[in-house]
């Protein structure tokens, strides 16, 4: 599997994504600067966590307008896999690659802690390595992870099996405890929790490995 990680000026989980991908795939991903309009030929694009453009105006709003996002959209339209983590999820909703929006946490505070997630859907390139209903622990670290969409959209997401991860104990007020969703074509995943922080057992667990393994198996 060939992967690329998008780097916005204030991305700050780009290195973590790179380390996790390198560990799991055995080769370093391409790091693509936000001003580059060309994306290398890859199977997976990761939009990492961080604060892209300082998260001024709205998280992910300005990033969604950057040159590289036009290429990411084209990649997604061709069926290429896109994984948006944390700020990356915000960029994906702002770019309309995923429905809904991420609002300020209901508790109004940034929250960083390990959370238990339920794997709701294994019919995807991202989660086929998990068992349906499996509990996994990933850290969250965000101030605006409160997923919002209107009821019709939420019903549709649930009906189509596009809610991939749900919080066991909701940390941010997210609608229907949603932690991660798929696009209609199931090739774009946005999630607030950080799978790349649970690849290396020395720093908090290994529950994220199966996500990368699933991608490698599907996309290689």
């Amino acid at each position: 599997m060939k992967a690329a990680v998008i780097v916005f000026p204030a991305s700050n989980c780009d290195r973590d994504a790179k380390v996790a991908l390198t560990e799991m795939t055995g080769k370093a991903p391409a790091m693509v600067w936000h001003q580059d309009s060309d994306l290398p030929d890859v199977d997976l694009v990761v939009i990492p966590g961080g604060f892209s453009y300082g998260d001024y105006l709205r998280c992910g709003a300005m990033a969604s307008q950057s040159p590289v996002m036009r290429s990411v959209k084209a990649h997604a339209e061709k069926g290429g896999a896109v994984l948006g983590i944390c700020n990356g999820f915000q960029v994906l909703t702002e770019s309309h690659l995923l429905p809904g929006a991420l609002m300020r946490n209901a508790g109004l505070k940034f929250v960083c802690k390990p959370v238990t997630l339920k794997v709701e859907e294994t019919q995807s390139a991202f989660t086929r390595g998990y068992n349906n209903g499996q509990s996994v622990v990933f850290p969250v670290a965000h101030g605006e992870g409160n997923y919002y969409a209107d009821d019709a959209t939420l019903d549709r997401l649930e009906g189509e099996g596009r809610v991939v991860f749900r919080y066991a104990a909701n940390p941010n007020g997210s609608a229907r405890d949603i932690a991660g969703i798929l696009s209609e074509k199931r090739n774009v995943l946005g999630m607030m929790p950080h799978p790349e922080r649970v690849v290396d057992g020395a720093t908090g667990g290994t529950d994220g490995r199966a996500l990368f393994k699933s991608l490698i198996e599907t996309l290689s």
Partner: protein
Amino acid sequence: MKARVFVTLKNGVLDPQGKAIGHALNGLGFPQVGEVRQGKLIELEIAGSDADKARADIKAMCEKLLANTVIEKYEIELK
């Protein structure tokens, strides 16, 4: 021209910050405060003198960047 764009959450979208402000105001001895909604004000300097054109341009800016129309609505004021 000077333009002011007010961006607020759509009615029906929960505004936890507004709720907290309302709660705090009640606690500070302002029981008359009911629902509070908070938003942002963006001031723009716009070149040119055609108000209709400016309004149309700002509307495009709102749709493209300044507001997230999934959750936010906006109002434009031109001076």
